[in-house]
Every structure is written in structure tokens, then in C-alpha cells.
């Protein structure tokens, strides 16, 4: 069969029930989707299939004839071609070890595309609920997605976004948690 990934068509020799994750990483050498649980439960392997987020470990490659697969490599690359979510993750310190980041970015990008404009916190939490992060505590990830959806992707705008509401008690910031 043939598989279209990031706009390029590849001949595939893996057997039909091989997972998309295995095909991308072993056969095509596209390694942004990470291998986490291989059970659909962690989200780090998430890629887009015809624009919708899917767990690459749960998709049999045979079902993708004629489909368009997009991985992080197809979303944007540094230094100039980053997508808004990628810019916002960078500016907002939304990645630590980075293992969950490819899946988070793909799901967040799909959410912003679907919404076509600013997204609410609840929408982000719902969209990322299948994505596990062991490092960040999620707050900076959710903030970054909201910022990206508003086009506020540089560091100065981030500080603005994260300023407490007038009614919130002031918290003394003691250096960067990173």
C-alpha cells in the first residue's frame, strides 16, 4: 500500500495490521510520535489523520489508504516555520522533558483549527484529557494552548496573560520553577 505523510507519498511494506506508530518510526524514520504505552492510554503518539487527532498506536496502517497523515514534522520546524502552538509552548515554558509534547501539540493544533479562534480553558482540558504529562502539572500547557488560540505567542504577551486578576491574592514569585 501507499501512505501519505506530511504531503509525501511513501510505499509501505509493513503488514496491514501494523500500527501507524510502528510504520512511522521503524519503516519511515519519522520519530516525533513517541512510544509510550502502546495501549492508547498516554497520548504521546498522537498524530493527525485527515486533520483529526488519532492515537498512532491504535490505528492499523491498512485503514489509511487514501488518508492524509500529519505528524509534528509536518506542523512546523524551527527556526522560522513554527505553528502558533509550537511558538506558544516555547514562549510559555510548556515543555519540560518533552516526551508528551508531540502528542500535546498535535491535539492542541487540531483543537485550535476546529475552533477557528480563541478557545476556553474547559475546551483545552477536554481536548487534552487523554494526554498524560509527568512533568509540567499541565497548567503551562493549558495556558500555552489558550495563548496560541488568541495569537499571543511571544513571551511578553505571555506575562500579560498570566497576570493575576485584580481580585486574586498576590503571590510572591520566587524564581523560575524550572
Amino acid at each position, binding site marked *: 500500500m501507499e501512505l501519505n505523510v506530511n504531503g509525501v507519498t511513501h510505499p509501505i511494506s509493513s*503488514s496491514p495490521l501494523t500500527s501507524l506508530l510502528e510504520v512511522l518510526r521503524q519503516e519511515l524514520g519519522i520519530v516525533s510520535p513517541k512510544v509510550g504505552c502502546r495501549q*492508547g492510554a498516554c497520548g504521546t503518539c498522537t498524530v493527525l489523520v485527515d486533520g483529526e487527532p488519532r*492515537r498512532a498506536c491504535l490505528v492499523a496502517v*491498512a485503514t489509511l489508504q487514501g488518508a492524509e497523515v500529519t505528524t509534528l514534522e509536518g506542523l512546523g520546524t524551527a527556526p522560522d516555520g513554527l505553528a502558533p502552538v509550537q511558538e506558544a509552548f516555547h514562549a510559555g515554558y510548556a515543555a519540560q522533558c518533552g516526551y508528551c509534547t508531540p502528542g500535546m501539540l498535535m491535539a492542541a493544533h487540531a483543537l485550535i483549527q476546529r475552533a477557528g479562534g480563541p478557545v476556553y480553558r474547559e475546551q483545552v482540558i477536554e481536548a487534552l484529557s*487523554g494526554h498524560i504529562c509527568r512533568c509540567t502539572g499541565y497548567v503551562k500547557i493549558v495556558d500555552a494552548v489558550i495563548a496560541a488560540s488568541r495569537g499571543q505567542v511571544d513571551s511578553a504577551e505571555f506575562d500579560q496573560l498570566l497576570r493575576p486578576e485584580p481580585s486574586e491574592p498576590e503571590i510572591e514569585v520566587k524564581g523560575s520553577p524550572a
Partner: protein
Amino acid sequence: MRASDTEVLTPGSAAQAVEAFGDGRGITVFAGGTILMPEIAAGRYPRGGRTLMLDRAGLDQLDQLGGDGTVAIGAMVPLSKLAGSRIEPLAAAAREVGDLEIRAQATIGGNLCAPPAAESPRGDLQAALLAMGARVRSAGKAGERTESVEDFLARSEDETRLVLAIEVDKPRRASYLSLRRPHAHSYAAMTVACAQNDGNGGVRVAAGGVAPRAKRLHGVERALAEGASGEDAAARALDEVDPQDDALASAWYRRNVLPTLITRALEQLQGG
């Protein structure tokens, strides 16, 4: 065993799928794959035989049949579509499954046919389908047939059938409650669904997570029909089911929580 150790069949229509399935011997049906793909990763499947992929067979329609609220749900309809369908209590059950990416891939046929697992109950939609008195249209040995979901779930382990569609009547009142562990990815430890149709039919009550497959609770229904309070009727559930220990909850815990869950679902039904 590796993923290559099976012959893959990809029928292009429902009729071809039925023909390829035949009497089902040696065939594994592959729908959304959210259960089967992890089985491959774990090396438990495939064990030879043939795999029937349904992704090109159609079977993904959700059709209104006539004006009386009867709906035919194709076996390949994804749970995301049901979640937004207002076909209660099925929609409520679908909304709670996994997360939005899983719901977009998981099918109703796969949920109905989910093989029981040792670590947790599976098939969270089954109780809702039982409470609705759903009918299952399937093909296999001796051809096509339509039967109640109750009979379908009770068939013998070694009779494999190809589910084509599930028919439901939208109930007049419905409720659904589940006992979940605080993590988006755990299956419900127990599910309870209640429904009452138009006319003078009684309330149907069913529970999942209390047996390998969900069960209708006839004793509870009878008690309600005889005028028992919700709480007294719910207490009868323990005569009909014998829950098991698994990774989500102990049998003891389930026995203690089940009557409360049923009582609350019945209260919700009266209120709604």
C-alpha cells in the same frame, strides 16, 4: 505472534462483509481497533486465522426509522457520534468513554462485542442498550437474525456473530450513572442505566461491571412494578448479580455501592 500472522479481508460493502464472515469460524472482526490494537501490542492477537476489517464496509449510518423514535445504529457508528445524539441513556454512556480521541475511533459494535477482561469490565454501553430494550441485527451461522440485546449477550461464548446494526426506540425517560475512578482513562467500575418507554411498559434497569457482560436486573424491575420504593427495589439487585474483584474495585465494594447507584439512577429517572 506478529501482526502479519493473519490473513486480512477488507470487504467493500455490508453484503460482502456478511459473505466473507460466513459462519464466523476462524474470523476476528476488526472495527475501530481500540481493543484489538493493544492486544496486538501485547502479543495476544492475532493467533492465525483471518481478520475481517470493517472500515470500508459501510455500516456507519445512523438512521431514523419512521417517525416513531426508532433509530437504527450501524455497527461502525463511532461513540463520538452517539455522544452528541440525544439518544439517552446511550448518549450519556458514550460521553463518558475514554477521551475524545478514543470516542472518535471506538465503535458501538466493538463496545457491544468487547470480550470480558480480567483487569476491568468492558463495554460501558451495554447497560444502556439493555435498559433501552435494544435489538441486535447480526449475521453468522444460520444467516441473519434480529434478537434482543439481552439474548445476544447471553449467547454461548463460541458462537461468534457479525453485528450489522443495533435498533433502539428512544425512551420517554432515561437515566445513566456510573462509578468511575478519578482518571479519564479508567473504565467505569460499574454502570447503571434505567429507561421507560411510552405506553404502559415498566421501567427497565440494567447494570454493567457486575458480571463479565452487563445484565438486566429483572428482580429490581419486578419490585418496582409491584410498587416497591426505589431503595427497596434496588436492594434486590444483589440477589441477581455476584460481582467480581478486579483492578478497578473489589467485589465487596461493588456489592456495597450497587444498591445506592441504582437508587440514585431511579431517583434521576423520576426527576427527569
